[in-house]
């Protein structure tokens, strides 16, 4: 087991060097409705094909570089989630995805922690309910430093005279 990188710069460098072309993802369902899991599973299908980008799924946290967390981190799952994270050798990245894991859908439910960040140190947050496979690919790209964050610059203020028709979501 190698030592974990200390500074953010080191982490970025390590990630780009080690994970840029091959990343092993371990998915963790902490009590979701499993629709996020379906979208994640679609990633391996021919249309999105995450293998062409060098990402792979692995069931063993010992072989994993990235932990993809879905679900609102129910209390019954805390120990298992912590154990999974502890079993991953460094350097490791935690990605929380889906509105549940980001603290949206069940923020005050007594049986959940509300969001994944309450138990695990999350590095990348991917919104969506469920996040489409394209959003997931973008998020994974951000996690390995290949793609840039765009949401930081986006203010979500719509132009006054939009080109699109109203009410089509």
């Amino acid at each position: 087991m190698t030592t974990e990188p200390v500074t953010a710069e080191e982490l970025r460098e390590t990630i780009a060097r080690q994970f840029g072309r091959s990343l092993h993802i371990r998915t963790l369902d902490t009590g979701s409705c499993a629709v996020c899991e379906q979208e994640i599973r679609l990633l391996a299908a021919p249309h999105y094909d995450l293998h062409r980008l060098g990402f792979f799924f692995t069931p063993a946290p010992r072989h994993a570089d990235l932990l993809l967390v879905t679900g609102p981190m129910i209390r019954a799952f805390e120990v298992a989630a912590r154990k999974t994270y502890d079993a991953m050798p460094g350097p490791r990245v935690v990605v929380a995805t889906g509105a549940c894991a980001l603290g949206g859908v069940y923020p005050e439910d007594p049986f959940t922690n509300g969001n994944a960040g309450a138990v695990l140190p999350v590095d990348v947050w991917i919104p969506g309910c469920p996040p489409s496979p394209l959003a997931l690919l973008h998020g994974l790209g951000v996690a390995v430093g290949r793609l840039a964050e765009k949401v930081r610059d986006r203010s979500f203020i719509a132009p006054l005279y939009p080109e699109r028709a109203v009410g089509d979501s």
Partner: protein
Amino acid sequence: MTLWFIRGIRRGVVTTRYPARPDASAIDLPTPPAFRPRELTRQVADGVVAVCPSSALRRDGDVLVYDVGACTACGRCAAVAPRAVTSSGEFELAATGRSVLIKRIPIGEEAP
């Protein structure tokens, strides 16, 4: 089996080229809303806050606090206030900090 193979050859490669090139199907995705501050009166703001099922919208004085991370793209806020809310069309929403996803939209002002 042969039919399936021939059909596949004729359709060609269906794998998307994303992220190297934009994906054509992205236009059909349900996406979180974008707000127009001019149409967003206090009343409209309270209306969309009340109707949001996943606590993504909150009113904090003169500001609509909009948590993109909590949004489920259900479309209720757009249904209630179609002039104030439109679909943003943004799906590349990954962020490295949770606070980056919380936007503050001023109520009742001109767009900057």
